[in-house]
Each structure stands twice: as C-alpha cells, then as structure tokens.
C-alpha cells in the first residue's frame, strides 16, 4: 500500500495540469457557443465529399 503515498501526489500534479488546460480553454473562448460546434464537423465533412464529387469530372 505504500505506493499510494507516491501515486496520489502524482495524481495531484495531473489534476493541476488538467485545471491549467481547462483555464486556457476558457480564456481562448472555447466555451462560447457550445450548441453549434457539434454540427460543424458534420458540415465540413459533407462539404469535402461534395468537393470530391464535383472534382471527379475534371480528372
């Protein structure tokens, strides 16, 4: 069980890092418009596919 005395402090350091990353994310406005970002990936994907299709005749 003595390993726990080393592991928990390591866990604390990880938590501090996690909080630091979280603060950075808040500062760089990543929580501004949560509603919308889920859709973005879908839209851009479709767009690429459409690009591929329209590129075909050119080749």
């Amino acid at each position: 069980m003595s390993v726990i005395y080393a592991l928990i402090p390591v866990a604390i350091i990880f938590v501090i890092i996690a909080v630091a990353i979280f603060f950075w994310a808040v500062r760089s406005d990543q929580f501004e418009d949560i509603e919308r970002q889920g859709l973005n990936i879908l839209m851009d994907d479709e767009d690429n596919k459409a690009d591929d299709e329209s590129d075909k005749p050119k080749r």
Partner: protein
Amino acid sequence: MECFHCLQPVPRGVNLSVEYKGSEKPVCCAGCQAVAETIIEHRLHAYYEHRDISQLQETPVLPDELNDLNLYDHPDLQKEFVRHEGDGTEVATLTIENITCGACGWLIERELMRLKGIHKAIVNVTSRRLQVSWSPEELKLSNILRALAGIGYKALPFQANEAEQQYERQRKSYIRRLGVAGIATMQVMMIAFGLYFGVVSDLSPDLQRFLWGVSLVFATPVILYSAQPFYAGALRAIQASRLNMDIPVSIALLGAYSASVYATITNTGEVYFESISMFTFFLLTGRFLELLAKERALKFATNRLTLLPKLASRETDDAVESIAIKQLNVGDIIRVKAGETIPADGELLNPQAQVDESLLTGESLPRSKKLGDAIIAGSINQHSPIRVKVTAIAQQTVLAGIISMQDSALAVKPRAQQVIDKIAGYFIAAILIIAVITFFSWWWIQPEHALWVTLAVLVATCPCALSLAAPTALTGIIHRLNRDGILLKGADVLESVKQLDKVCLDKTGTLTEGQFRLVERQDSIDPKTVNHIVSGLELFSEHPLSVPLSQLSDAPAKFTHVSNEMGAGLQGELDGEVYRVGSERFIQQWHPEFKALNKYQVIVASKKQVLAQFRVEDQVRDGAAETIEWLIENSYEPIILSGDSESRVHELAKELGIAEYHSGLKPEEKLAFVTEQQQLGHTVWMVGDGINDSPVLAKADLSMTFSKASDLAQTAADVVLMSESLNQIKVVIESALKTRKVMQQNFTWALVYNVSILPVAAIGMVAPWAAALGMSLSSLLVIGNSLRLYRK
C-alpha cells in the same frame, strides 16, 4: 407546396424554382430564389441538409432594399460600433436576426470567408451575433452586409450593452469556478470512498491521516476559490442588512471547512471535505444555469437595439443633403420618401398626405393630413414623397415623450419579492438557535463531542436542496418556454401569475393582425369576372383596404383612363365600359337607390349595375377567440385598451365576448388605467405591440409583446412571443403555474428533509458519509423534479 428555401407556402400563381442536386425545387419569391441560387452556386448546399427545418426561415430582404446598406459606411454611424485594431483592421459585432440553427452559422462563416479582405468571421448561434474583422482598404462594411443579404441574412449593428459585458465576465468566471469544483470534487469523492471503506475494514491511522490531508488539498480550492460567489453574496446581504440564502450556505461551508481543517491538523473528530465540495458543485451548477438563462434573455434584448442609419434628407438652397437626424434643427425642411419613417415632428408642406400612425396611436387606418397639419416622428409616410418643416427634434418629439414615460413607468414597476429570501430569514434563525442549543446540551453531557455534533447539525441542515429549489425550477421554465418560442426576460412571471386577475390587451396588432384582409363578399355576377375587374382597378390604389383586393386575381384586367378620387374610390375604363370601385357614397353617384349591406365597405359597379360588395377587415389574430374564452373560463378578466375608434373596438369586443373595453386611449391614459387597477389591488398583465403601448407595458405587473412589435415595446415587455399566435398567452400562464407547483414541491421536500435529519444530527447519529449521502440525494431529487419542466 412549400418554398425550398424559407419553407413558407408558395403563393398561388408564383412559378419560380431553383435547381438543387439535379431536380427543380419550388421557391416562393424572387428573393428566396436569389438566395438559394447563391448558396448552391457557392457550393454551400450542405446547409440545406443539416439545417433545423422545424422553424420557419425569414423571407430574405428584397434586392432593392440593398441600396440602403451603403449608409452603414458613413463614418458618423460607424463611430458607434466599429473598433479599430492596432494592425489596421476593423472589428464589429453585428446581430443577425434570422439565425435559426447551427447550419446558419456555418453558412455565414463560409460565405464571408470567400470575400477578399475578411480576416475573421465568428458566428455565435446562441446569441445570434457575428463578430467580423476586415481590412478597410480592401472591403467596406456595406459589402459584408450585402454578402449576408445575398444568402438571406439581415445583419445590423447594435448598441452594445454594458451589463452584457459584465455578464460575460461573470459567466467566464463561473465556468472556471465550476470546472475547478467539478474536477476537485471528483478527487475528494474518490478519496472519500477509500475512507468509507475504512469504516468497515481496517485503515491504518497513518493512511487515514494521509487521505485526510489529500482531501484537504483538493477541497481547499473548492472552498476558497469556487465558493467565492456565495461569500460575496452573503457579505452584500449583511451590508445591506438583509438576509438571503447565501448566508446559511456560507456559514455551513466555512464552518464545516474550518472544523475539518482543525480535525486534519490535530487528528481528531471528523472531516466533511466531500460533503462541502459536492455541495459547492451542486449549488454552483444551479447558479450557473440561472446566469446563462438571464444572459441569454439580456442578449436578445440587446440585439433589438439595432443602430439603424438615422439619416434624414434636408433641403439646402440648391440641393438635398443627407445628414444625421441628431444634426437637424427646428425650421429645417426635410424630405421623406414613401414607406420611410418620419425622423422628426413637423408640419406638412404638401397639399395632402397619408401617414400611418398605428404604432404611435393604435389607430388602425392611415390618417389623411392636409397642408400645415402636424406630422409625428415615428409615423410612416404611406404614399408619395412629402416635404416636412421640422418643428421639434430629438428630445422634444412626441416619440421621445413616450420613451421617457416608459422609463419612468419602469422605475416604479412593482417587483415581486423573492420568496426564497423570505424563507432564508426564518431558516438562518432556526439553524443558529438549534446549533446553539445542541452545542450547550452536549457541552453539559459530553463536552468532548459538543463541537463535532454541532458541526454535524450545521452540515446536515445545509440548505443545499433549498437553495437549488428556485433556480432549477426557474431555469426549467425559461428553457421550456424558449423551446415554444417564448422569451422570458426575468422571473417576475412566477410571482405575478399567482394573483393575476386582469389581462389587458391592445387591439391593433395584438388582438388583430394589423393587416387588412377580405373577410366577406357578395357577388351579383360571376365571382371570377368580378375578381378580374376588381384586382385590375385596385392595382392603381395604395389605400390599405385595396391591398387584399388587388391580389384577388392572377391575371388582373388592364384598365385605362384610371382616376383616383381621394377618400372615395377609383374609376377606370375596360373594353369601352367604365367601372368604379370604392365607398358606398361613390357608387351612389351612379346608382342613387343603392344601399350597401351591413358592414360592406368596398363596392364595385359598372354604369349599368352594382357587381359586388366586399368587407375588408383587420383580421382577428390567430387563436384570439380561444385565448379570450380560456381566460374567461379560468376567471382572468380580459380588457381591451385601444387607441382606435369606439365603433371598431366595440365590434371586436362583441365578437370576442370581451365585456370591458376602452377605446380612443392615448398612451398616458392606458398607463393611468393600469396604474389605477394596480392601486385597487389588482394584478394586471398587459399584452401590446405598439410604441403607444410601451409605457403601459413597462408599468404592468407582467407584460407581453410579439417579436414583430415595435422595438420600444420589446424593450419594455417582460415576455416576447416569437410566434404570431395569441395562444402563447395561455402557454405562459400554464407553464408559470406549473413551475410554481414544482417550486413548491421542491421547497416542501427540502424543508421536510432538513427538519427530519435535524434531530438525528442533534443526537450525534449522523456520520460524515451519511450527511454527504443525504444531502446529495435530496439535491438530486430537487434537480430531477425541476427537470420535469423541460419535458412537454
């Protein structure tokens, strides 16, 4: 058949389409066609696949309105909303009215990034805002607005609100606090589970002390950083010598924390780190949701304060110049085109004019003005261009008077007292008394346990569920109504619905649609022929009664020699025969013995015979009859407050079964009526849409307006109804009543829990884990109960 782009029905006789993925799709108008073509041409068609089609899209701006956008390049106007960045770019935030879903945001960003000179375009769908930065040498703001109009969005700069920036900062700080509380609480809970197992199996004292220490490390930022808003709230309340819920919360948090720290250092007693961390996290979540709902409402309200190009055309010695309205002087002569809003009070210089004052007075018909008559700022010039001599500007206009009346009414609006703060008062007193009694009783029996048992009492009675009861229910109703297209600006609805007994309604634009439609007709010959003739002749008229008649036929007759007799009707020639359309008196000149049937106002006749009679009315709004019936059934008394004439108001009141009505009221008389009712002890709600309603909207206990109402009315109202149906009034009342019920259940449960755990804690039977468990379960129960409000 629905329009491919805007999803609204395609009018009869319109035959337009766009090509989309190889097939022809119908569209309703040239505007939609142009927009859809642009979107498809720019290969942004993914928009059509992912957009939210449950909501109607706004019909796009028509091309000829686009010229006005140049006004936004005017440096005077830009000063108010464009920011210059150090690197030579300009930044502006615009509000976009008709964003409905995430796909719109994507479409706008993609379209703008195509433009040369754009640096950044970020759309926030929730607040319907676009932040855009561009290089002024390569691009003008009007080009950006035009590109947006090209894909069907109307973007306008708006007056930024200072309160909003404060909310923004507050929200970010809440996200940070919430994140810290969440992450740290997880760790504390994990360690707490280790400690719980220590209760049943062996845990070496060293290890236990180590785990207590680790819990202390994780709980400290939660208590000292995340929980700060509660301490601040408690301090503010104490300074103002009031009591609020933050005070018992702060006592419990800080008390339990200090005792746990003491326990950790001296290695005696109990620790409550997991209880207080979780407690902070739950409460913070409740506060955060409340803040989000409020911020959203505020942002919507700010979006309405758009900066329109407030310019006027002033005559100089030899030309007409365009100047800001602020710079107008009394005595200037200005020109106002047809369809434009009149910028200042003045005197008419033309022989005659028709102006629409409905927003200012509630009068449904445009008023005829003669040379020298007074023209009011804010009214709309209906027909030909007019010249006006300015008699009052800015602060002295009738419009400004109404605005200041609204401001003063808002200042004295009765505000419902927060129930929760009242409860908090009793609660604090009870807790403190019981804690003191517990401490001294134990001090007398077993002094070494006194501190820890008292602490258990404080933690167990911590009003977590109680303080979540109101905010979660409030957030529930805000979201629920939002989904139904109803925007709530505050929580007043919950308090005032309890005593609500009178609902006042405006007539023009509220009970009615404010637009004329053909209601009834009586034909003497084949209706098709009549339609052909009437629509052809009415095309030459701009009278509001003629609008529905001119659209009767797809193929209007082509009249010649048309003459317009002001206030009487039109006369024209078709295939050698002369026809007339107009008032009864106008027709009687040809057919003296003719008498129109009751209520028919528009008559068509040839020289030989009367062909048909029409009744054109400002139609009653959808759902008005049912809503009035429902109000009366539930013993809410509907009252009409209208600025329109007695006869029209009387007729509508009779039709809808409304017993009490008041007509011909000026804005101040409406205000006086509601004030008087309030002094008699009634709780009065007001539904209205015009500028003339805005003072009374501000004064009423709760006020509602429509999203198409005047900006002033929207600023004054507490509730904005997005849909055009009056049925929404019923939805608001029912939801508010339901929310009150849920809130009461929450309060009851929280109080029952706290009261029943109290004696158990007081006799020293509540271990830290039991306190944490009980508190979490009761909080979750309250949250779960409030979540029912989200469901239909």
